[in-house]
């Protein structure tokens, strides 16, 4: 990029954020989410698989520890957990533990890191893998993520995140093969933090 182009794009960025300041922007949303920091929640998840007559349900707890740690403990139907820290994933199922990295996953771990990027309010991280678009307003917003790279498109169609203010309510992951996951998120009562 030439120096001129860089200066221009810098100017554009400033202008854009000045315009955006008047309405609910991605930056505002991210700033609000980032301000929350660590959070605990419970979730129920339904996975829709085209060949299955009914969705597969699960529920459990979700915990985000700023800046980059996600813990998903599934309690029903089986106790299992997934820990994501940095780019390391640890899967626990009974006595068995498996370690892998994000890139071991077919989609390069993009789906799970989109969840983390959103909870952390880390726009830069999100934009590394996704085209980010925001709809709605502060009271009810939808963040839609579409894969930035062709390679990921063959696995994931989109991730849709809905929420109110600084609260995430629903995350929907749509895979290219028609498998869909819808996760409802409820903030955990403050006095009943899962440990």
């Amino acid at each position, binding site marked *: 990029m030439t120096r001129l182009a860089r200066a221009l794009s810098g100017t554009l960025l400033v202008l854009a954020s000045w315009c955006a300041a008047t309405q609910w922007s991605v930056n505002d949303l991210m700033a609000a989410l980032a301000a929350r920091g660590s959070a605990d929640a419970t979730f129920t998840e339904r996975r829709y698989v*085209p060949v*299955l007559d009914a969705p597969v349900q699960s529920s459990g707890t979700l915990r985000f520890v700023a800046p980059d740690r996600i813990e998903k403990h599934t309690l029903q139907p089986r106790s299992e957990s*997934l820990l994501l820290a940095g780019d390391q994933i640890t899967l626990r199922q009974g006595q068995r533990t498996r370690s892998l990295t994000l*890139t071991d996953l*077919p989609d390069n771990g993009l*789906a799970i890191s989109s969840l983390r990027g959103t909870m952390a309010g880390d726009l830069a991280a999100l934009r590394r893998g996704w085209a980010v678009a925001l709809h709605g307003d502060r009271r009810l917003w939808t963040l839609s993520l579409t894969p930035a790279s062709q390679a990921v498109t063959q696995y994931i169609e989109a991730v849709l995140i809905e929420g109110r203010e600084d609260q995430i309510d629903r995350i929907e992951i749509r895979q290219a093969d028609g498998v869909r*996951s819808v996760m409802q998120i409820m903030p955990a009562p403050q006095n009943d933090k899962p440990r």
Partner: protein
Amino acid sequence: MSPRGRTTLLLWLVLLLLVIWQAARTPIRTDLSVFLPRSPALDQQILIEQLRVGALARLVLVGIDGGTAEARAQASRDLAATLRADTQFTQVANGDGQSLQADRAFVFRQRYLLSPTVDAARFSVDGLRTAIGETIEAVAAPAGMLAASLLPRDPTGETLQLIDTLSGPVTPRRVAGVWATRDGERALLMVGLRAPLIDSDAQQRALATLDSRFDALNQPELRLLKTGPAVFAAVSRERLITEAAVLSALSALLVISLLWLAYRSVRTLALGLVPVGCGVLAGIAAVGAGFGYVHGVTLAFGVTMMGEAVDYAVYLFVQADGGRDPGRSAHWRQHLWPALRLGTATSIAGFAVLLLSGFPGLAQLGLFAIAGLVAAALATRYGLPLLVPRDFRMRDVSALGARLDACQQHLVRWRHWIWLPCLTAAAVIGWNGNQIWQRELTALSPLPIETRQLDAALRSDVGAPDVRYVVAVPARDRESALRGAEASVARLTPLVQQGALSHVDAPTRWLPSEATQRQRQAALPSADELRSRLQRALRDLPLSPEKLQGFVDDVERARQAPLLTPESFAGTSLALALQSLLVEREATVAGEPSWLALLPLHGPPSGSVDVAVIRAALAGAEVGGVAPLLLDMKAATDTMYVDYLREAAWLSGGAAIAIVLLLAVNLRSLPRLVRVVLPLAAAVLCVVGGQLLAGVRLTLLHLVGLLLVVAVGSNYSLLLDQRSRADPGSTAADATRMLVSVALAATTTVMAFGVLAFSSVPVLSMIGSTVAPGVVLAFLFSAALAQPVHRDNERR
């Protein structure tokens, strides 16, 4: 020049040309294999084959350092792409999506032949219900999206559990899409070379290609690191050759300066090197003719052993004034040449014993030394005098001689104290008892410690630890080897479950025996049958059989698919694993097992492998009458070296006896025998004692060095003994010159080997630190014990 002289010269020239021709066509090899025994037990044979041609010996681990993670990953991908297109490399794995996808696609395609859970029960109505039910449950798991995607075509979940075992117990972590070290600061690649370790030149070419391809990426902030047997061979060779070259040049400079002081003539100096040159060429030619090649280490040692030949010319020039003066020349031939001849014969007797060695490396060294010394002695006796110019005059050395004479008088007066250092040394040796010998081969390794550390680090990062225990299943054909491996795996699996082992690698994980593959195919129901079973199995599950047409098709395809062979793995990174675990042995004797399945055992995370438990588990696991062998790679290597050492020690003892017998027969006088042998024995004793005091444990090379001390030292003691004998026609000046020549010879030898002692390559420093002090002591003891020359007696 007399006609006879001309004939001699002509004959010499013809011989020399023949020798040069033979030496020039003798290839130099540098691999470890000549230092391995010739006809070992089967387990050692297998180990040696692995070292020589095994896939593990062809594996190079590559690291890329520096720059950003993205730059390293890009370089890893670019390098892998260019190497994959090059036939010098069989396999390039860097964990990138391409190879990962190829592996996953392969496993998915072949799941019904590969999966150990495929049997008739699993495809019964109940089995299907359970398996499909579990897979549906797995969709709910945190990582269930993958299970969900696989559900339509793989409802029994074979792929997922295969992928689980795909990578073995340790997988390198992936950073920016490619393998990296645990700290993420270094990208990793595994590269398989086509050339085996014994073809070191081809391996070096492949490594050079690797370097140049990396340089061509033009990423100056990135750095390439390599490790593996091929790299070790290259590093050892380079270090040995460069150090040997630098140090030889240095010692040559010192020796030449000293000789210059003595001769003050360029021509004499040049002539003095003629016997050495003849000796080295003859040594190479003889070894080439006898073995077909010469090993680099043989060459390096052989050349140092030719240091004795430098002395020959010194004796001729100093004692006989170049052999030009007819009277003095005749005297030299009659009185001194026999002593020198006996000295040479003594050396040859010492080295001849090495010929009996079962290790080609030692035998080569013996042959080299013998051929070289014979050639050098003949050149000195018959050739060199013809080349000495008519006006040759040795410098007047009488002043130096007088001083040396006086020194010897002092030494003689102290001669009764010789028992003191000898007894001290003997006490030190006795005190050290069993600790005298270094029993681990790594002590000889010329590799710098950083190289070994880098290797260990990269190995643990890629999950290819230096495996110590391997179960080897020898068999007459591939199928039997695979069946044997399956039988052994079945015996070892309970140990993994109990925690006695953490993991067992096996070729059958990827290539099951044909019998097993057929069995799995037979367990798969036909399309119609499967459809009807699914009807019943899915009654209570949220899945209708019509939606599983992909599954039915895939099962039907698997039933009729051709069985897997090693060729099926082309293009996947599994090929490399398979190649290293399923080996077709080269050129085996008829009746010997020609295939080998290898099962590396990974010990439990804490503690070590209990050999007895594993032997017990494997007992009786025979297929086709061949039992699996438990190999301890480290013990086998060390045992081999200890065998080597033991043999060399026996041979040295034999050499000592041969030398004493030879001298006894020739000298025919007990007092003279004692005067000749005692200084040598005392020198050897003191050197060994000194090494032990310095905390050094003796290796094979010390032993070779001691042999050299005896060979060179015997010349000193013989000549000094000869000097003290009153023979007619010998003048006081002759006696003086004799002493000067021996002192000069000893000084040159000490200089040459003293320089080696400062080498950072253990092989060179061990030889240097043994020979240099040994030669000094042999000279001093010889001088002290020699009968003083008659006129000195009068003075006393």
